[in-house]
């Protein structure tokens, strides 16, 4: 079937290593979250997947075929890139028209509908769009492309709360209607968390985690209470992150099992961990 396979990918820019031996297999038909801090390598990875830049070493294949200079395979992907690659002088509706030439499955009616819903004026030229509307334009193109693999790089950049809400719903509706592989790359984790099926966390060019979201959320929990008591509880356990306020400390513990009795004896509270807090804990230096 088709899966996206990334093998020992390294991308170096002079002395800097942007991606450090990344290997990943993305099964078909899921919504993945590619989460990482600014500069972690998310955009580099997506650009490599679409042949916009070339690896220093390693390979990316889709259904067994390399993406490098491969029109057939690349045509199955649509990439909402961070950079706006559309000709600034072209009107939005012209971009729609040309996209249809290169992506035969592009649905112009759907694109029009979305444009109306988001109140995007398709007569405007690309260069006249605000940051938010540029994102909306790119997102609409991605959704209407009907490609089997959709890559969204920071899809809600510049979008107001209403449009963010609408966009997540559209992505979901589109995904349900027409099962495909979706990768949402972002550092705005809170809102997107529940839309995701699987989470990939990238830190300084390395993949530190790839797990189904639910599994991830039950594999950790928070411990909070008086500092010395918390220290006793977490002794010997794997923890990340920690908030301290006066005598109060809260830590995230990585463990499947919660030690309720110990917590009770130490007068501590155990709680569920949120994806964003977990992410911060994992990606702080």
């Amino acid at each position, binding site marked *: 079937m088709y899966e996206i396979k990334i093998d020992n990918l390294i991308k170096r820019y002079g002395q800097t290593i942007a991606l450090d031996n990344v290997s990943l297999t993305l099964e078909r038909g899921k*919504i993945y979250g590619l989460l990482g801090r600014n500069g972690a390598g998310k955009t580099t990875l997506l650009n490599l997947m679409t042949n916009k830049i070339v690896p220093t070493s390693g390979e990316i294949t889709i259904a067994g075929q390399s993406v490098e200079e491969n029109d057939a395979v690349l045509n199955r992907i649509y990439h909402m890139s961070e950079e706006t690659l559309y000709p600034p002088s072209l009107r939005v509706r012209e971009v729609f028209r040309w996209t249809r030439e290169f992506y035969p499955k592009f649905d112009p009616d759907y694109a029009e509908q979305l444009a109306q819903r988001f109140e995007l004026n398709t007569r405007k030229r690309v260069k006249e769009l605000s940051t938010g509307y540029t994102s909306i334009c790119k997102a609409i193109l991605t959704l209407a492309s009907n490609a089997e693999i959709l890559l969204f790089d920071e899809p809600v950049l510049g979008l107001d709360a209403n449009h963010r*809400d609408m966009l*997540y*719903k559209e992505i*979901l*509706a589109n*995904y*349900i209607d027409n099962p495909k592989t979706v990768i949402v790359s972002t550092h705005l984790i809170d809102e997107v*968390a*529940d*839309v*995701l*099926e699987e989470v990939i966390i990238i830190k300084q060019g390395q993949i530190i985690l790839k797990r189904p*979201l*639910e599994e991830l*959320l*039950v594999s950790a929990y928070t411990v909070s209470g008086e500092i010395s008591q918390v220290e006793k509880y977490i002794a010997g356990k794997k923890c990340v992150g920690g908030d301290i306020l006066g005598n109060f400390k809260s830590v995230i513990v990585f463990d499947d099992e919660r030690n309720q009795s110990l917590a009770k004896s130490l007068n501590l509270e155990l*709680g*569920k961990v*949120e994806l964003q807090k977990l992410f911060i804990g994992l990606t702080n230096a």
Partner: protein
Amino acid sequence: MILDFNSEQPIYLQLAEALEDDILKGIIPEEGQVPSTTEISVTTKINPATARKGVNLLVDEGILYKKRGVGMFVCVGAKEKIMKKRRDQFYQSFVATLLDEAKKLNISRQELVAMIKGGTDDV
């Protein structure tokens, strides 16, 4: 249906409970149709796999059933089933916590009973 994304429980369990609540309150009658996983997913912005999991949980427990090509419906006797399940869980879900909190605040058994009596008068 209100989902609290900050709560303790996994989303799919919250979803199952929210649906059960709707059934208990009579918002969705027995033999009535439940919103599709698509509708639930898009409206609450949760991944469809999660939505499906919550719904399937209720199917497994005999609270919902699937009519091929039409959708999900509430089983006859679902209300009863839910009530029984909830009653069995009542102690763990509510009473244990109540007792704990009371202990924390040094509320005596008698004070507790008085509170409950006072509360039930309004019911």
